[in-house]
């Protein structure tokens, strides 16, 4: 559960993003605390994935600030930003696994590039993380040889292998069957619990599977924060947000 005594790891202040000529986010204020799993929900096209990409500055905000452990990311030089990004783990919606590498090399990649350990240690940790997600035997295979669910689990292993302080998951159950989706969310919770002080942020439409995993929810509607709190607080949320949780709002249209 969200504990307000936990320190704020990441804060967005007045974040606005114009993406490809369209205002996607408008004055978004969000806080992510250590040891909590935050679910970001909202109708399709509301700006959830853009918000997630703005957190490690993969997208540069038009206005506003992203503050990581007290440091405004916009003030960091290139080297400082690279160091700050090492705090993040990112699971992309489309897996974003490197086609030309084996599964094992994909998972070991952040460790090798980060220079945190030697090659043998990187391989050992990558193999262990693959075993955690149940894919030890897929290590020598290439991503093209895997199913969607397996790719997602490899992406999850890669996103968490370096024990990131802030783990970002963009639609981890997209295109997966219900059983695999449940498994992915369980793995996310396990990964979160094994990394001390980790903050996790999940963007998804899959409210049912987010409920047991997320401590807090942020609802984005039309590029603005429409709700920020626990599910128990939904009573004070606007009807559009309640509709999201009841599965009755798709792409901004109430069903």
């Amino acid at each position, binding site marked *: 559960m969200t504990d307000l005594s936990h320190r704020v790891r990441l804060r967005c202040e007045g974040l606005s993003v114009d993406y490809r000529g369209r205002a996607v986010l408008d004055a978004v204020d969000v806080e992510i605390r250590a040891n909590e799993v935050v679910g970001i929900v909202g109708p399709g096209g509301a700006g959830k994935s853009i918000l997630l990409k703005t957190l490690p500055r*993969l997208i540069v905000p038009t206005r506003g600030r992203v503050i990581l452990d007290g440091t405004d990311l916009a003030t960091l030089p290139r080297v400082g930003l*690279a160091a700050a990004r090492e705090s993040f783990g*990112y699971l*992309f919606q489309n897996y*974003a696994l490197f086609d030309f590498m084996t599964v094992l090399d994909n998972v070991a990649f952040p460790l090798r*590039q*980060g220079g945190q350990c030697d090659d043998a240690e990187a391989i050992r940790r990558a193999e262990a993380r693959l075993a955690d997600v149940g894919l030890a035997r897929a290590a020598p295979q290439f991503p093209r040889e895997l199913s969607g669910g397996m790719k997602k689990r490899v992406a999850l292993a890669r996103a968490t292998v370096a024990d990131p302080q802030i783990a970002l998951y963009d639609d981890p159950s997209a295109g997966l069957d219900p059983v695999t989706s449940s498994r992915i969310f369980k793995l996310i919770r396990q990964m979160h619990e094994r990394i001390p002080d980790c903050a996790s942020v999940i963007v998804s439409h899959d409210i049912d599977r987010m409920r047991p995993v997320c401590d807090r929810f942020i609802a984005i509607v039309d590029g603005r924060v429409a709700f920020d709190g626990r599910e128990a607080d939904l009573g004070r949320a606007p009807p559009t947000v309640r509709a999201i949780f009841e599965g009755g709002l798709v792409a901004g249209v109430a069903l």
Partner: protein
Amino acid sequence: MSIADWTVAPVGRATNYVLETVGGASMILWRIMRALVPPRFDGHETWRQLDRVGVRSAPIVIVTALFVGAIMVIQTAFYVNKTGATSLLGYGVGFTVFAEIGPILIGLMFSGRVGANNTAELGTMVVTEQVDALRALAIDPMRYLVVPRFIAMMLMLTLLMVLGDLFAIIGAAATAQGLIGLDWRVLIANLIESHLLDELTMGIVKAACFGVSISCISCYFGLSVSGGAAGVGRATNNSVVANATAIFLIDFLVGWLYTL
């Protein structure tokens, strides 16, 4: 629509597109130079590219070069036989193959095979968020993806040109012996006596310049892809056209500089 819409506007759009491409490729070159001093790039990825770009291109370059040499002999054979000037065959073949036809044809083959492949690969990495994944892992895509490709293309196209020159001569000698009945040793001896070192170095300089332009242009189009699979197709097509144009332009400029 007014007449200006039919005349001035397309010229303006084309000029804008050319300037945008030249500017984009120049920016890539500038950022490569910044990454090279001091050298900061991925060694493993550079080795992978050297193999992919160079070693795997060798067969197509060898085949192209063999035919270039053979065609030069066939094209000049009629006049050589008619005038009896067999001693000029080696010079004619060497001059055209080393300085002009060899670099252009091998450059175009390389651009078609490696440049197009590079644009398509980088474009696919962009649309499947693999480039974003690199950035999320605190890795500069310029240093990890572009610099190794630049080094591999410049170095390997230069080496492939030397290999191509060698096989063009083999193709010419074999054709002279087999189809025209001219002793291949006469052709080789004549070639050596012709002192074509300037033409040979000109061809190698052209190859190095082609390597630079093919890498910068193909990386520029690859990394600026937008619009999914259709965008990758468009970028690859544009990359092939721009590379071919750049090859002819560089060929002209280097040839002209050698005449000064």
